[in-house]
């Protein structure tokens, strides 16, 4: 059992509050990603879980045990750092066995653990090298090896891939996912890269200004973001947030959006509870539409919009099409070679995927 409970945890430096009552709870084998821009408190939270920062309020429990005042070595955790933090004067082998040496394990036990970890990470041939003789990816593996030999209850990763180049980052991401599948250990992983969060996590906590904005499975965070901030942060290109006015006729919910130089467009058939529909009828709302929920209209059903295409950006598998809707720039992901820049285009929208937000609080309306 290796659960992690973060219970109303606060962190303040003097009067500056960097974490405000953060509560997150994950189960054994979960892969929690703390996602947010720099300065949102995610690394601070990770350091607090590790015991490298003190806790100003609340409790952190690992496997049911409160660890607030335990030193890092007594928390049964292992950590992988952004800069890898390999001991520069030690060989790879010495790096990996340093912790075991301190805990007083015998040479035989150490050799066995090092061998197992090295085999798992395919770094056996590097064991006698110094960190300076390794490439970025190899250093990353060694850092993970150092964590694995502890057999901890909890793995902590602090932006482990951000020092790698793009290609290697994707490879190592797969590697980490494979490692998680094989070892089944609970992992807390900090990143500002939403793709890493989507691909790796079983649970994502999107953070901003020391507050968890949304904690859920990655797909739920993507499909039903809790607020405009989360909607914009997760997904690339970001979710389009279009100002509009809600019109309700019976069960039919429609968002009216302005189109420059044309009569307003109507997006009909938005899923919404009767209660919310009643509350927001005739009011301003923000309409959240993912780029891939646009399609070229083929005369079928669904909401239809006639827009003037501004820019066309082919990416290969599909083309990003930029136009204006409701006074903001909107991006649609369409199949290649369907529309031309400067021309009119008729687009349909998958309204079942639309998310509405309150225009003032910017939180999701259900």
């Amino acid at each position, binding site marked *: 059992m290796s659960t992690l409970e973060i219970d109303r945890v606060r962190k303040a430096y003097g009067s500056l509050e960097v974490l405000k009552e953060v509560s997150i709870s994950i189960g054994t084998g979960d892969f929690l990603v703390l996602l947010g821009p720099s300065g949102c408190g995610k690394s601070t939270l990770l350091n607090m879980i590790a015991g490298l920062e003190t806790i100003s309020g609340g409790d952190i429990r690992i496997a049911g045990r409160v660890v607030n005042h335990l030193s*890092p*070595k007594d928390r049964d*955790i292992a950590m992988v*750092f*952004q800069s890898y*933090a390999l001991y520069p004067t030690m060989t790879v082998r010495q790096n990996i066995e340093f912790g075991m040496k*301190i*805990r007083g394990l015998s040479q035989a036990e150490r050799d066995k653990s090092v061998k197992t970890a090295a085999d798992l990470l395919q770094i056996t041939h590097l064991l006698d090298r110094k960190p300076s003789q390794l490439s970025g990816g190899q250093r990353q593996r060694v850092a993970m090896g150092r964590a694995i030999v502890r057999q901890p209850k909890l793995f902590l990763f602090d932006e482990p891939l951000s020092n790698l180049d793009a290609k290697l980052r994707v490879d190592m991401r797969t590697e980490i996912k494979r490692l998680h599948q094989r070892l089944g250990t609970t992992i807390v992983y900090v990143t500002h890269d939403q793709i890493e969060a989507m691909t790796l996590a079983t649970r994502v906590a999107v953070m901003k200004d020391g507050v968890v904005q949304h904690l859920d499975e990655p797909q739920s965070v993507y499909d039903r973001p809790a607020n405009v901030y989360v909607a914009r942060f997760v997904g690339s290109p970001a979710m389009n947030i279009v100002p509009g006015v809600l019109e309700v006729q019976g069960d039919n919910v429609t968002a009216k959006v302005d189109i420059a130089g044309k009569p307003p467009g109507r997006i009909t058939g938005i899923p919404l509870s009767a209660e919310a529909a009643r509350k927001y009828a005739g009011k301003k709302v923000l309409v959240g539409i993912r780029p891939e929920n646009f399609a070229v209209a083929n005369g079928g059903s669904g909401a239809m919009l006639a827009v003037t295409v501004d820019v066309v950006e082919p990416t290969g598998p599909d083309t990003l099409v930029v136009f204006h809707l409701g006074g903001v720039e909107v991006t649609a992901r369409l199949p290649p070679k369907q529309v031309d820049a400067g021309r009119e285009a008729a687009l349909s929208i998958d309204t079942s995927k639309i998310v509405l937000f309150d225009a003032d609080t910017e939180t999701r309306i259900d």
Partner: protein
Amino acid sequence: MAEALSQSGKARLGRLAIYACLLAVALVYLMPLWVMVVTSLKPLDEIYGGSFIGLPQTVTLDAWRAAWSQACIGTECTGLKPYFVNSLLMVIPSVILSTGIGAINGYILTKWKFPGANFVFGLLLFGCFLPYQAVLIPMARTLGILGLAGSIPGLICVHVSYGICFTTLFFRNYFVSLPDELTKAAMVDGAGFFRIFWSVILPTSIPIIVVSCIWQFTQIWNDFLFGVSFTSGASSPITVALNNIVNVTTGRKQYNVDMAAAMIAAIPTLFVYVVAGRYFVRGLTAGAVKG
């Protein structure tokens, strides 16, 4: 083509001028050393005969022998030997202690920061700018109270406390460039304060240890003022003894012995520079260029 030739000719001429200039400056700089070396190898009569810069006609090591073991310092005619030993006895512990304390200070000031750490560092820096003369009397009073006045251990205390400012500065600036994650990783691995210091931090700091040792060795070995103020008689360091040899003579001034004595006093620092000098420059510039 002709233009290119004249271009390279011009460059060569410029280079030649630079070398000539460097050579001239080096000669000016080396001249005193040359005079010292040749004078120390000449018999006294030859020196008084008027030959000063020229090569010795008869080479003799008598002056060196005299300076080392026979020259009179005050009333004792023991040569520099016992004072050379005094200096060694003083320098070695002083260098080790001040470098060690500086290393721990630098480690704490960068990796175990406490509220006000920068203020404390500022105060320590202030010590670097304190002139020797300003601390003489308080230092003498303190040594008197501690019962260490006029002894080698007392002089060690003075040099260690005066040197800590410099060594702390060296180590602090070096450790600042080591990533904090290194300490954090070691903490997660279960290492404590001293374990991290010994196993992780110190092995990476060889260049700055060498810098600190060279700096401290040179400063302490060459110091005269503290030596003459806080020791007396048989416990004096070599610089004080050298001064006594040169300044206290009866009869003809023994230039060859004076020169040999000065050379003997200078050899250890020269030796340290030759052996460890390449680390010196490397260590001084370490961390300055990060990339």
